[in-house]
């Protein structure tokens, strides 16, 4: 029962995606092309985020900890 509801919901989401991006009106080959492009772009965004975000977060963390962390040290020395 619940599986069916989830399935319906996923179908609804997919349908919304079709309608909003206007790919609903495209011919099948265009639609698959469009899907490929969106999926690729999306995958690349996710991958980039996965690769770069942790590095940047770490760098930012180090940067801020340097500013706030080193302040008392410098006054002491």
């Amino acid at each position: 029962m619940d599986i069916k509801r989830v399935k319906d919901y996923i179908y609804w989401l997919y349908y919304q995606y079709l309608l909003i991006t206007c790919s609903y009106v495209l011919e099948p080959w265009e639609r698959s092309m469009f899907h490929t492009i969106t999926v690729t772009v999306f995958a690349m965004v996710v991958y980039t985020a996965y690769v770069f975000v942790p590095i940047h977060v770490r760098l930012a963390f180090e940067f801020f900890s340097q500013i706030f962390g080193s302040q008392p040290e410098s006054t002491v020395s």
Partner: protein
Amino acid sequence: MANPSAVCNGHLHHHHQKQNNLLKSGIYKKNGITKGMKKNGVSNGTLHKKTITEHFEQAPMYVAVLTFLGFGVGTIFGYLRDFMRAWGLEKRNVAAEREQQKDFVPLYQDFENFYTRNLYMRIRDNWNRPICSVPGPQFDLMERVTDDYNWTFRFTGRTIKNVINMGSYNYLGFAETDVNALKTVTIELQKYGTGICSTRQEMGSLDKHVELEKLVAKFLGVEDAMVFGMGFATNSMNIPALVGKGCLILSDELNHTSLVLGARLSGATIRIFKHNNMQSLEKLLRDAIIYGQPRSRRAWRKILILVEGIYSMEGSIVRLPEIVFLKKKYKAYLYLDEAHSIGAVGATGRGVVEYFGMSPDDVDVLMGTFTKSFGAAGGYIAGKKDLVDFLRTHSHSAVYATSMCPPVAEQIIRAMKCLMGLDGTTQGLQRVRQLGKNTRYFRRRLHEMGFIIYGNDDSPVVPLLLYMPGKIGAFARRMLEKNIGVVVVGFPATPITESRARFCVSAAHTREMLDTVLNALDELGDFLHLKYSRYSKSSHPELYEETRLELED
């Protein structure tokens, strides 16, 4: 005059402020419908008692963004397909420039061609669908399929039976095949046949026409009237007879093509005012009086204001009292096209003039068509005898066009007599009342469901906003699957971001039919995510008390 620009009651957070304005301008005292005014309605009470409740709710911002996204994707794929066509990768199905004409001005490269070729073509199956029965409350459609994505269609020979018709302008349900109702028409058909084969000025004036013209004049309460065989030509051929060079036409921006064509053919200068916006109109009138004609600065010979009764794409009703006030103040003429409003509004179906409780003498040229409420064909022009006599001799429609065929004239006479109660029944009045009831019911339910619908609460034309291009196709196809025929409208008939479906409520629709349609809409509205309205649902019910139903049977 209350501020007419406040009529677009788009954003919730403006309400409070508006309410204050209304209180200040003293309308609050005048018409006691406080609840309606607080939430939605904006009245312009000083000129007339009637509260105009018109809705033009704006969609949330994200809808516009997504609409453009949709059009963007469509356009990109359009360019791709055009590219493929240009390089011979795909068969060309449309007209293209010939090789020899390569260096001439391109013929098929403007935006509208692109749009037709690459966007409209994809959902073309929702338009121009042939029907094969009387377009009453239910009709039959010819089933058709396409094998090449809407470039060509093939009829399967089957019909789709008993589709609920929400698209025909059959406001009073006079498009019918009931043998009893059509008895007189049959008699006339046998007496006169169908063809006239001549014009009004030659041998095409029949006693039927005279009878019809007398009846129309009586119905409208004017001195004289003239009927024409075609409504479109009534506008486009009579305006040039009335105004010409050195005259000024002030035209509403949403006027029907027939009015636009007439105005252009006349050779007069045309200025456009914003839809139903009295400040815009007054500014144009004032400028016209102050500055006169360009360069020569002579006064304009005539100033003619062109408006419609009910606007068929917005469902709004013209602000006639203010227009008449302005027209009198600035001594202009008024041409009112009642194509959709005659028969459909007013307590006894006499159009917007009656709706606002005004006198027909206030309007100089009353025009209307018999195509809609009367279930026939043709149009009329009514007004002072001088005017009509002038048109009889000067209108191209009278001199060159074949006159109306007698069975059609008889159908109009029958419908009009029914409406006036001259046939000894109250059926006509019942139809008008039924239409009013159906309209208010349909509009109220749609509001409650949370759709954005445009227009006046009393207008039987109900546009429901769809916005996104993909949803136009999906909506019409899925409605047809549920056996409901709807009209969807997109660019260029509407602004590009405001695609819509347009329902025309009829007196012939039963409550069950409307409920079927409403239930289907409710379901589809959730599925396609069409319920954009941001008014809280609980605030709606009390807004639409049926205050005008004192005639209830």
